[in-house]
């Protein structure tokens, strides 16, 4: 009897259960850590374990006192290192986004236009790098770009250069690494968008007298704008907070916010400042994230 009651209950509730599980997941693994980080960012640094002051202090009188300090945020603003690093991260992420777009757009277009199996092979080649670890691929770039690495050796063998040029541990290496790593995130949304594009629209533009360039700017580009925006945000948002690439390929020479964050946590053991850096980064990225969600929602509406 109880089994059938449970069965009935499951039957009537299964929709809310199915929908509820991901919510609980997000609550536990996203929202809770976020509030922990937010809490630490409002604490004071201590030499203790854990190395920050408590939010609620149970004083001698038994009354709790609330310890909230925005000193960490003020510090981020006052020390020009942080502002400069944020701006530098955004600059690098922006340039990489534009580079990814310039490389990825023609690639996505070529894949959509390819016939039959060629198309799927090309698509597979875009996805293939995901089959190996991201970290390994960045290490591979270290090997390619090092002073005694593949690229320098090849250029010296060709006789283009006489001694190795500095490629690794430079701004250049960071750009190469980010563009390489995030290119699929640009191509895939563009591909998804372009695939839906009716080729007869481009033919109609040509038929009505638009030369290829005019047709591209008046028809193809506006209709692929949602794909461009989605791809750009998918590259820009993670690239801004990127840590591994600037750390491994940029060495100490490239300031990006991910590295600062790492240093605050691990070298300075200043958890509150590190948390403030993280929260500030989140605030910086909230605008593009909201934009991305708006684009996604608009696309979903149009698709139906």
């Amino acid at each position, binding site marked *: 009897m109880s089994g059938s009651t449970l069965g009935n209950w499951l039957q009537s509730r299964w929709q809310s259960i199915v929908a509820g599980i991901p919510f609980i997941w997000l609550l536990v693994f996203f929202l809770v850590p976020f509030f922990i980080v937010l809490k630490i960012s409002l604490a004071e640094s201590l030499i203790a374990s854990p190395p920050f002051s408590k939010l609620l202090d149970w004083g001698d009188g038994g009354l709790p006192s609330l310890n909230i300090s925005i000193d960490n945020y003020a510090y981020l603003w006052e020390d020009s290192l942080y502002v400069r690093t944020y701006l530098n991260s955004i600059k690098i992420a922006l340039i990489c986004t534009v580079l990814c777009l310039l490389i990825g757009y023609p690639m996505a277009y070529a894949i959509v236009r390819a016939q039959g199996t060629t198309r799927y092979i090309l698509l597979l080649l875009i996805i293939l790098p995901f089959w190996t670890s991201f970290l390994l691929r960045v290490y591979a770039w270290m090997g390619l770009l090092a002073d005694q690495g593949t690229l320098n050796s090849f250029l010296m063998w060709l006789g283009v250069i006489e001694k190795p040029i500095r490629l690794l541990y430079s701004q250049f290496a960071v750009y190469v690494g980010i563009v390489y790593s995030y290119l699929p995130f640009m191509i895939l949304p563009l591909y998804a968008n372009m695939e839906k594009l*009716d080729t*007869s*629209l481009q*033919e*109609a*533009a*040509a*038929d*009505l*007298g*638009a*030369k290829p360039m*005019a*047709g591209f700017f*008046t*028809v193809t580009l*506006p*209709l692929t704008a949602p794909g461009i925006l989605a791809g750009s945000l998918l590259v820009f948002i993670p690239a801004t907070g990127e840590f591994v690439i600037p750390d491994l390929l940029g060495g100490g020479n490239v300031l990006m916010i991910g590295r600062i964050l790492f240093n605050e946590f691990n070298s300075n053991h200043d958890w509150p400042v590190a948390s403030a850096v993280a929260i500030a980064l989140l605030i910086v990225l909230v605008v593009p994230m909201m934009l991305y969600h708006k684009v996604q929602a608009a696309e979903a509406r149009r698709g139906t």
Partner: protein
Amino acid sequence: MTQESAYPWREEGATPFISIRNITKRFGNFIAVDDISLDIYKGELFGLLGGSGCGKTTLLRMLAGFESPTSGSIIIDGADMTQVPPYERPVNMMFQSYALFPHMSVEKNIAYGLKRDGVARDEVKDRVADMLAMVELSDFGKRKPRQLSGGQRQRVALARALVKRPKVLLLDEPLAALDKRLREQTQFELMNIQDRTGVTFVVVTHDQEEAMTLSTRIAVMDAGRFMQIGEPAEIYENPATKYIANFIGSANLLPVTIGAKSNAAYEVQHVLSQTAFTVSSDQTLNAGDELTLALRPEKILIDKSPLADYENQITGIVREIAYLGKISTYRVETPLGVTLEVTAPNQVRPKGTGHRIEWDDEVYLGWNTDSAILLKD
């Protein structure tokens, strides 16, 4: 200059407006269009009719400039267009999917072609307004295509293709996406607009009824070649082959052997049953030739009593009746060993539940000497 004839193709030496000369189009090993030539005259509403994969759309796309022919040439109004890109041709196309720009309003869609040509803003405005009035969508200019019904979109597509006053308008299955009622209404609208604008229309369709209604002339295509080119009535009454006889309308086909000739008619013998018929024909045929007698269902009279004035008469038993309202189609089993299809108008309103001719009735079928034709292949 002499007055333009309404039927220029009937005249000797008339100048064609579009001249397709020995056009071939290959895709790899596949020959989509196989060495065809065709002249289309100014002001025609020319129908390209055929099943899917017959090459009609490829031919249309070559006229538009989206495909370039493997060999041969296309001349429009005296100018060789074979290598001219689509954006420089005096030709516009109405796409099967309409291909309206979804991010532009109806007005902007129609104005698109004029803007590409650098037409002055005021003139663009006037011409767009004229077009919207012509297709009766003046109140819909600000809407986006997705806010329109199928029929309205079709009219926007037509307006967009006509606003540049092209020399030739190409229409790819213009009515295929509409429901039956709207399709019939739009057919007449299309003919009307063609008449008013005087633009030469080339229409691709797989629907033989549509082709018959719309066209001044029809080219029937199959496997990349023209099987017959002619006025609708000519193709219907004098199909060149069995394939066309069956593709345009339907026909009863009987294999026959040619016998003696008397006056303009031949005595023929049905191969299977040795039954004799007379068929008039202006072809020169030899006794003993094997041909096919083609007889349209509506050219056979059906009655329950013997028919007086018909040269060819047989009896039969009604096996199936399809009642279509204004007409009925009967499938009549005959002593020929074949079942003939016969249609007859339902002129008399049946009393009670019974019809004039019922299932399993014995009936008399009759047709005249010139009702049937003889086909060689």
